């Protein structure tokens, strides 16, 4: 039955997926055309919104890249037999996974200066970098847990087989265990990516001009109720456009790892 589920909606599914992709933009377009004054306002504001969204893209992709790399390493270290290594990592994961993103991002404004002085020049410490760090930390904690879970769900016999061939622990991880983990950790990884991306709207807290804040600015300035609503839809469409292709990509990857590789 699982194999059926994997090759899931083929033809009609394809159509469905693309409808999913186009639905929100189509709604925005239709509405703007139906009420041209609204459409004009929207067109006027789009560059401002787009400039905000650029920050969301940059922050979310950087935070997630950083978080994935660090998190994978930490996930592995959580299973290391040496306590002096394991305990600090476990503590890190617990502390930063549990803390609200709001607090973590806010804390970065305290930890990092707003500018650094290099040879008498004031170099601003970019706000977006603070947001990246503030989000990469929880992302890494989440990824670490996912990685740990995936490693623990691989049958012991695979480790034995690897060891029996003379693989060291790290080689076995690299060549045998982690590749098998990939498939089962892709969907939860995508969950994290989505959560972290949505978390980028907290970046306004450190002074980043991002989409949600930009949309509020726009609504405040335009002072039209229908504009406020369409601004929400634009925000949703923008985030969807950012995340959905990645979600699709992960599902395609999942399917590729699946090819014949199941005993």
């Amino acid at each position, binding site marked *: 039955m699982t194999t059926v589920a994997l090759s899931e909606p083929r033809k009609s599914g394809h159509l469905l997926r693309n409808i999913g992709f186009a639905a929100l933009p189509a709604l925005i377009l239709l509405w703007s055309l139906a009420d041209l004054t609204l459409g004009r306002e929207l067109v006027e504001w789009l560059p401002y919104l787009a400039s905000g969204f650029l920050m969301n893209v940059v922050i979310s992709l950087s935070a997630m890249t950083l978080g994935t790399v660090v998190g994978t390493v930490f996930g592995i270290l959580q299973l290391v037999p040496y306590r002096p290594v394991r305990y600090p990592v476990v503590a890190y994961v617990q502390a930063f996974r549990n803390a609200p993103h709001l607090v973590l991002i806010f804390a970065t404004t305290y930890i990092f200066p707003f500018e650094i002085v290099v040879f008498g020049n004031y170099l601003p410490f970019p706000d977006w970098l603070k947001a990246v760090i503030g989000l990469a930390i929880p992302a890494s904690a989440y990824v670490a847990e996912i990685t740990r879970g995936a490693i623990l769900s691989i049958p012991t*016999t695979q480790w034995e087989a*690897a*060891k029996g061939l003379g*693989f060291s622990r790290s080689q076995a991880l690299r060549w045998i265990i982690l590749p*098998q983990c990939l498939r089962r950790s892709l969907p939860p990884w995508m969950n994290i990516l989505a959560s972290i991306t949505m978390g980028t709207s907290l970046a306004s807290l450190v002074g980043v001009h991002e989409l949600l804040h930009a949309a509020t600015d726009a609504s405040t300035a335009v002072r039209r109720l229908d504009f406020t609503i369409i601004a929400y839809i634009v925000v949703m469409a923008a985030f969807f456009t950012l995340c959905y292709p990645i979600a699709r990509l992960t599902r395609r990857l999942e399917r590729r790892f699946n090819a*014949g*590789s199941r005993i």
Partner: protein
Amino acid sequence: MNMKTDDAIVRLEDVHLSFGQTEVLRGIDLTVNRGNAVSIIGPSGSGKSTILRCINALVTPQRGRITVGGTRVDQLATESERIALRKRVGIVFQQYNLFPHLTVLDNIVLAPTRILGVARGEAEKLARELLEKVRLSEKASAYPGQLSGGQQQRVAIARALAMKPELVLFDEVTSALDPETVGEVLWVIRDLIRDGMTSILVTHEMRFAEEISDTVVFTENGRIVDDGSPEEIFHAFDNPRIRQFVGGLAGGRGMERGEGI
């Protein structure tokens, strides 16, 4: 078949091992000389697979000494020491344990390239030779999930042999094979032994044990009950327990009847 040097490559002395409450090995003594083939036979659950896993340092006994080619296996403290051992000692698992995410060829090639640093091309050449020997050339690019039981088992054999180990531990490597293929595998192993490889084989196939071994060891309940040349074990039958065990298929009721093939 006995033109081999007579130094012990494997020696187990009074090896005891428990999993939690279950006592699995209760004092195993076993010596295997270089270039020999030793078969371990015995009832299911008597600890045969566990003996092999001890020798390869996959489990550590609670008591006793294990020496493999001069190395005290039970005292290996670091992982790198264990790895050094395992490079010399191959193992084929009873349940194959192939890597499901790799094709047959990659399953075989992975260890030589990653661990021994053999060039990919060379490793592939050897892998294809081995696949040829176990008659699986046409399955090189299949995944384990697409193979029949016997095919998986043969891949597992090829995977272990690709590391060119001095000592190979075979855990019921012919269980999923038909007599004809067993015969072929027998010849492959025999050739390797002739080239100086030592091997320990766990098997339920008495014919196979007889054909291949210099010594046969009979285990029961975590102890070695008897050992000797195949001749002694299978034909002299001075041990009634072994007589009963080997004749088991005839149900103990009529060894006489079962002279069949």
